Structures are given as structure tokens and as C-alpha cells.
């Protein structure tokens, strides 16, 4: 009985004695288990499944679950390797004291078992506790119905048990395997292996710098985000490669450069810091680069998902010029002749009268749309746009023709045009040509109309648009000849009817009116695809279901990533601390005062900590123009809002980072100064 208890006792003591190492590890394990449980519990949560658009959120969560499981595997392996490296000495001692490898393995097994049980129990417990909170958060984000019933998802418990059972089993296997193949003396000595002086690799450092500059330049230069998605992807890869090179070689090269400057280097404040920095960067360059990339990912993710979420109302406003819009789309101009329009308008108004609610404002106009390809001074009807290579998208333009009468009426202007003349308003592009030539139609561009016609589609479309104001709709009759590869007419003639109730209408009433009018329009033309209709209220629900889920996932994943980054830094610093112990003891003997030591430590830890953060900030700043352009595709137009959110995300991240820095620097200092007593 006694003998049986010896191993668990040794294992417990081992964990307690090394609590500075084990507590963060345990916290990481518990955190990961908790996150996984919450993710899964949310994905299978009945309240999510019962809400409209909940499928979207559910899909995002399932994706997130996979990401977290994979990440947990990598992350826990990484942190565990720190632990086992530190523990090696202890195992070496056991082994010299006459314990065979089997027994050491048993201790390791017990330790793993303890860690596993604690992690899974605490993680699951906290997960169950917080899953309701997370559910409320999610339901709030997707604007779903909230209930306060407390639930436990057996399905999620099973899932978490299986996933983490496997992960912990793998971790244990590795530890035991490490013990099995090692030798006692090596175990004891494993930490005091001499290290060569870092050499600056100038070539790699330069390549890193060039890669990053090139990537930044690419990101800024991108005009049409969709066309340049491939390019941006390349830029991202360049940034990643560049960051690694810069942190691994560039930093050492930079230290060498500082060392070459004797006036700078041989100063009390710089001497020790700069020389140990070179080593530190050589050892930790890769880790810091990873943290930098991870942070950049988190920041971009947070900034874009929250922008989408908080900008949702804006985006919907962009898409919807009015609360409700009904747009008839026909090929035959006769379908929207004055008589037909009058008849349909009559039906719409009948619906209003029926419920005795009249809209505050009504906006209606006709326009025509065709997609063209710019080539020279010509605008070709686009028949093969889809086949065109991605890079060809740059020349694609959507043309919206509006008669000068409609334009004047809607915009309250008094423009006039002669036959064959046109005014253009380029949206997200420029147009400096004098003519528009398309099929048999020839137009003379006599100027630009500054105020764009409020056509929703020019903002929601991916491709740049050109609003062309023409004398009358007779002008574009020749375009009806143009057909695409399927032989279908390309010109699309539309009648837009949009109205606004102002603030004082209930959502259900507005939706009811909208549905009735939509049905009326559909039966009027006896066709299903002829009408593009939408209502802010119905759209908004969909929108929040989609982006609310995305936003929530962004937050959850960010929390995990930040947590991971922090733990990685903590471990790096702690293991550095153990290595620096002896070094600082020597310096103390040679005459370094405590305040000097503190200063030197601060400057080093500060650099190690904040270099990745600053670099991440720089990456974020240069990724911003692209992210902004991408967000515009989601109809986000509020630049100040997006900038605020991005800066806010960075500030919040930085603040969190600062707190962790304080804790870590304290722990590091305690380790280093504990050498004093020896």
C-alpha cells in the first residue's frame, strides 16, 4: 500500500515544487478544455438551432471548434515541452539516486494523470458554468431570443472528453518516450550545454526587410481587392516569411550593429542588455515571430469582425436606400412602360391603403444596367467576364444608365443633355475617356456628375461602376442587341420603387406590407426572378445572424490566441530567467548593483515583449488599407468607425499585453535574484 502511494506522492510533490511552471500550464489546459466545451455546447445549443439564420452561426462555430482542437494540440505540446525540459534535471537526480526508468516513467504517468484529471474536471466545470454566459453573448450578438434556462450538453461533454483524452494521452506518451530514450547523466546535465555566439546573417536580415517592405507596398497598392486576392495572399506569405527572417536574423544583426558602435555599446545601460539580447533573439527569434504573426492575426480578425458587426446598420443602410425597396428587372423595355408602372404602383399603394399606413417618403426611378469590359476607348459588352482570368477583373465595369429627367427629379438638379451626350459618375474607379462606345451606341462624355445617383447596387457590387446619365432611354435601345454567350440579352432594365416609414412603424407591420407588395409584383409579371425586393427588417435579421456569429467566433478565437501568445511569452521568459540566473549572479559579484540589474532586466524583457506587439501594430497598419477595401465589399462605408474599432482593438490588446508583461517581469526578476542566496 505504502509503495503504491509513493509514486502519486512524488508526482504531487513534483508539481507543487514546480508550481511556477505548472500553474500556467494547468491554466492553459483548463482554458483550452473550457473553450472547446463552450464552442461545442454552443454549436449544438437548441436555442441557436431554433432561430432564423442560426445555421450560419452554427457553421462558424463548428469551424471554430476544429480550429481550437488543432490549436490545442500544437499549443499544449509546445508548452509541455518547456515543462519537460525543466523537469529533466529532477528526473536525472531520481535516476542517479537509483530509480530505474520504469519508476521514473511511473512518476511521469502519475503527473500526467493528475494534470489531465484537474484540467478536464476544472475545464469542464468552468465550461459548463460559462457556457450559459457565452450563449447569452452569442444570442445577443446574433439578436436571437434569450432564455435563462441553464443547460448541460452531454454531447459537448462527450466530445471534449474524447478530444482532450486523445491530446493528453499523446502528451503523456511523448513524456514517457523522452524518459525512455534518455540517459541519467544527460538528464542531469541537459540544461548546461554551451552555446555558440550568435552570428549576424546580413543577407537573411536584408531579405526579411525587403520582403516586408515589398509586402507593405503591395498591400497599399491594391486597388480592387477581389482582383488582387491572390496578390494579397502572396503579400501575407511575404510578411510571414519576412517577420521570421527579421526576428531571427535581423534582430541579431541589429544587436551586432549596436555592438560595433563602441560609444553606444560600452555604456552601463546598454552593455549587458545588448549582448544578451543577441543571444536571446537567437534563441527566441522564432517564438517572437510566431507571437507577432499570431497577434497580427488576432488583431485583423478582431478589427474586421467587429467592424462588420458594429457597422451592420451602416452596411444595411448602404444596401437599402430606403426601408423597403422593390425593384422590377426586365429585359423588355415595354414591361416597364409608363402604363405598366402606373398599374403596378397602383397595386403597391393599395396595400398601403389597406393597412391604412402611408410611407413618409417614396423614391422611384428607372435605370438600366449592363456589364462591360474596358478596352482602349471602347467599352465592350461583357460576354465572357466569368471566363476572364482573375486579373482581367480590373477592367470590368458595371454601367448604370439613368435618364437626365430621372436624375434631375431624384437629385433636385437642372441638368440638360443633347442627343448623343452623357455625364458620368465613376464609383470606385476613374473615367478619363471622352467617349463611351458600346455595341452600336456612341456617347460623348461631356463631363462628370458630382452627386452619384443613389443606386444601391453600385455600392454593393464587387466591381467598379460607372453611372452614366443619358438624355433619354431611347439612347440605349441599341444595347438590347447585345447578347452573352448563352444568347441572352445583357441589358437589364429596371424600375426602382423604395419607401420609408420613418421611425414610427412596427417591424411586423413593415414586413407584412413588404410581403404583400412583393407578392403583388410577382403575380403582376407572372415570373419569379423578375423582382429584387428587400426590406431592412428582414435583411437585418439575416445580417446579424451571419455577422453576429462571425463576430462572436472572432472574439472567442482571439481570446484563445491571445491567451496562447501570453503563455508562450511567459514560458520563454521563465526559461530565460533560469538560464540568466547564473549570469546575473556573476555580474553581481563583479559589481553590478541591484538597480542596474533591474534596469537591464527591464529593458530586455521590455524589448522581448513589445517588439512583437509593435511589429504586429505595423503589420496591422499596412494591412488596414486592404482590410478596409475588403470591408467595403460588405457595404461598410464608415471609415472613422472602422479606424476607431481597429485602434481600439489594438489598444485593448496592448493593455492586456501590458498586464501580462508586469506579471512576467516580476516572475523573471524573482528567479534571477533568487541566485543571490546561493
Amino acid at each position: 500500500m505504502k509503495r503504491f502511494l509513493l509514486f502519486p506522492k512524488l508526482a504531487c510533490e513534483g508539481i507543487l515544487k514546480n508550481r511556477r511552471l505548472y500553474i500556467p500550464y494547468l491554466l492553459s489546459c483548463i482554458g483550452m478544455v473550457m473553450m472547446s466545451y463552450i464552442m461545442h455546447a454552443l454549436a449544438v445549443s437548441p436555442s441557436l438551432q431554433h432561430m432564423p439564420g442560426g445555421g450560419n452561426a452554427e457553421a462558424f462555430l463548428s469551424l471554430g471548434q476544429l480550429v481550437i482542437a488543432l490549436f490545442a494540440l500544437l499549443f499544449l505540446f509546445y508548452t509541455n515541452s518547456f515543462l519537460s525540459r525543466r523537469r529533466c534535471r529532477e528526473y536525472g537526480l531520481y535516476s542517479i539516486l537509483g530509480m530505474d526508468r520504469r519508476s521514473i516513467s511511473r512518476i511521469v504517468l502519475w503527473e500526467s494523470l493528475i494534470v489531465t484529471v484537474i484540467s478536464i474536471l476544472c475545464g469542464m466545470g468552468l465550461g459548463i458554468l460559462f457556457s450559459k454566459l457565452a450563449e447569452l453573448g452569442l444570442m445577443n450578438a446574433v439578436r436571437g431570443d434569450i432564455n435563462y434556462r441553464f443547460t448541460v450538453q452531454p454531447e459537448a461533454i462527450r466530445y471534449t472528453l474524447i478530444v482532450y483524452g486523445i491530446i493528453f494521452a499523446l502528451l503523456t506518451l511523448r513524456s514517457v518516450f523522452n524518459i525512455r530514450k534518455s540517459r541519467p547523466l544527460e538528464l542531469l546535465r541537459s540544461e548546461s550545454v554551451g552555446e555558440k555566439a550568435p552570428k549576424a546573417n546580413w543577407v537573411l536580415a536584408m531579405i526579411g526587410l525587403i520582403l516586408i517592405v515589398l509586402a507593405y507596398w503591395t498591400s497599399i497598392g491594391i486597388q480592387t481587392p477581389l482582383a488582387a486576392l491572390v496578390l494579397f495572399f502572396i503579400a501575407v506569405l511575404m510578411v510571414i516569411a519576412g517577420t521570421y527572417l527579421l526576428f531571427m536574423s535581423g534582430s541579431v544583426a541589429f544587436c551586432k550593429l549596436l555592438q560595433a558602435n563602441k560609444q553606444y555599446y560600452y555604456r552601463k545601460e546598454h552593455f549587458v542588455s545588448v549582448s544578451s539580447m543577441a543571444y536571446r533573439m537567437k534563441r527566441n527569434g522564432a517564438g517572437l515571430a510566431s507571437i507577432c504573426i499570431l497577434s497580427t492575426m488576432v488583431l485583423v480578425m478582431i478589427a474586421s469582425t467587429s467592424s462588420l458587426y458594429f457597422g451592420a446598420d451602416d452596411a444595411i443602410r448602404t444596401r437599402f436606400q430606403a426601408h423597403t425597396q422593390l425593384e422590377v428587372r426586365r429585359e423588355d423595355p415595354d414591361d416597364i412602360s409608363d402604363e405598366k408602372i402606373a398599374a403596378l404602383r397602383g397595386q403597391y399603394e393599395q396595400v398601403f391603403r389597406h393597412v391604412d399606413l402611408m410611407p413618409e417618403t417614396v423614391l422611384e426611378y428607372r435605370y438600366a444596367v449592363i456589364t462591360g469590359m474596358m478596352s482602349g476607348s471602347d467599352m465592350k459588352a461583357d460576354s465572357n467576364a466569368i471566363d476572364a482570368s482573375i486579373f482581367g477583373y480590373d477592367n470590368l465595369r458595371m454601367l448604370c444608365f439613368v435618364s437626365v429627367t430621372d436624375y434631375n427629379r431624384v437629385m433636385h438638379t437642372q441638368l440638360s443633355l443633347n442627343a448623343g451626350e452623357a455625364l458620368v459618375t465613376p464609383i470606385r474607379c476613374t473615367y478619363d475617356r471622352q467617349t463611351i462606345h458600346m455595341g452600336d451606341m456612341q456617347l460623348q462624355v461631356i463631363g462628370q456628375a458630382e452627386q452619384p445617383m443613389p443606386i444601391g447596387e453600385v455600392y454593393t457590387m464587387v466591381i467598379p461602376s460607372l453611372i452614366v446619365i443619358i438624355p433619354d432611354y431611347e439612347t440605349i435601345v441599341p444595347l438590347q442587341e447585345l447578347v452573352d454567350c448563352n444568347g441572352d440579352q445583357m441589358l437589364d432594365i429596371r424600375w426602382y420603387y423604395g419607401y420609408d416609414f420613418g421611425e414610427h412603424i412596427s417591424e411586423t407591420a413593415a414586413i407584412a406590407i413588404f410581403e404583400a407588395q412583393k407578392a403583388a409584383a410577382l403575380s403582376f409579371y407572372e415570373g419569379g426572378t423578375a423582382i429584387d425586393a428587400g426590406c431592412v427588417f428582414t435583411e437585418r435579421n439575416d445580417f446579424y445572424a451571419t455577422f453576429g456569429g462571425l463576430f462572436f467566433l472572432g472574439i472567442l478565437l482571439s481570446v484563445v490566441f491571445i491567451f496562447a501568445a501570453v503563455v508562450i511569452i511567459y514560458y520563454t521568459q521563465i526559461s530565460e530567467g533560469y538560464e540568466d540566473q547564473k549570469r546575473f549572479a556573476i555580474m553581481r559579484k563583479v559589481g553590478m548593483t541591484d538597480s542596474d540589474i533591474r534596469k537591464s532586466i527591464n529593458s530586455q524583457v521590455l524589448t522581448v515583449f513589445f517588439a512583437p506587439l509593435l511589429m504586429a501594430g505595423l503589420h496591422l497598419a499596412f494591412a488596414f488599407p486592404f482590410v478596409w477595401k475588403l470591408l467595403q465589399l460588405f457595404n461598410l462605408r464608415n471609415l472613422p468607425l472602422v479606424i476607431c474599432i481597429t485602434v481600439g482593438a489594438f489598444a485593448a490588446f496592448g493593455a492586456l499585453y501590458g498586464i501580462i508583461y508586469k506579471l512576467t517581469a516580476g516572475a523573471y526578476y524573482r528567479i534571477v535574484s533568487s541566485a543571490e542566496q546561493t
Partner: protein
Amino acid sequence: MTVLEVNHLQKVYATRFGGSKVEALKNVNFTVEEGEFVAIMGESGSGKTTLLNILAALDKPTSGNVLLKGKDFASIKEAEAAAFRRDHLGFVFQDFNLLDTFTLEDNIYLPLVLKGKSYAEMHDRLTPIAQRLGIASLLQKYPYEVSGGQKQRAAVARALITDPEIILADEPTGALDSRASDELLRLFGEINRGGQTILMVTHSVKAASVASRVLFIRDGEVFHQLYRGDLPNEQLYQKISDTLTMLQGGGIKE
């Protein structure tokens, strides 16, 4: 002129809760004159290390005092101890205590950099010392690239460069092979003839035999001392050996 004066030094170590007490130093008295080369000998546990730690201002005595050129160690505040060591004492350790992140040159500069000297001045000081110690060609190397003897010579250079009142050497030959030991001891003799005061703790008879005076410590007290007088190293070696044999026999008392 007296450089170092040690009066009635006592050091008692108590276990944490004041249980059993160990008296590492009972009553140590001696003085070191300027230009002397004193060796302190004693077996493990005799209190050598405790004495050296107190002399290095790394530890405080329970009672008694240490005066360096008349200045009482007790008047040095904890926070100033490091600066005091740096400015007045030079150290040579058994395990060299060189920083592996610095070249030998930078290791030697360390105390001066901490003192805030300019590079030009440090460089001027180093050149003759490096020349004399025969490490001028090794200055750009890192500690792991050179031999133990060379490391110890760099450590000696680091101790010398601050021009200290006294050099404290703790088993300087302990980690060296016999050839490197001989070379280092020859250097110590040479440095001492140049006017440098040296206090060396050792249990190597050979190391002690280059000193001008040898103190023997046993059970926390100075038990005996030998003056070189005009004796050559070999004869002093013989005398030290004889003394040690007698000491171990538990014999003479002054």
C-alpha cells in the same frame, strides 16, 4: 601601510527557526600589508569560504569588523556593496565566472563599464594588462573558445583592470591542470612583485607556496602562520607541507 585589517571576526549560522547554531568563524584576526601576497589555507569546513565572503562584502559578520584602508565594511549599505566591490576589490574565482555572452575583452571591461568609463580609457588600460597576461591575441574570442588557463587569465585581467586595493582569489587554480596552474601562479607572483596586494584562499600547497605569507585556518580560527622570509618556493612548499601534516595530527598550538 595596512590595506586590510580583520578584527575578532565571528560568524554564526543559525537554522531558520533558531534551532542549532553553527559557528563558522570563531575569532579571526589578521592584517594584510600593502604589497603582500597572503595565502589562507585550511580544509573544507574550516571557514575559508565564509571568511572570503565576508571579505568580499557578500556576507556580514555576526561580530567583529573588517577595515579596508581604514574604512569599516559595516558602514557600507547593502545597496552600495556591489559598487564597493567593483571599485575597491578585484576577484578571481575558481570557476572563472566569465559571462558566456561576452567576448574576453568585454568580460574584462565589465566592471569598468559598470563604473561608467569611456571606451577609450578602458582600451588604454587593457592594452598593457593583456600584454602582460599574454591574452592580447585572444581578446575577441568567447569564453567557450579558449582553454581554462586562458579563461582564468582573462578573469585576472578583469580583476586587475579596476586597479583594486586588493585582489581576492578563491581557489584560482582549482579548475586548472598543473601546467596552467603553474603559469597562473607565476603570473600572480609577477603581479604581486609589481606592487599588487593579493589575498588567496586555497588548499593547494603548491599555490600557497608562491605567497609571501601563509595563514592556516582551523575550526574558525587562525591557527598558525608562516612567513616566507627569504625562502625559495620549494622550501616554503616543504614548510607548508610539514605544517599541514602537523595540523592534521592535531598537534601544535601557538
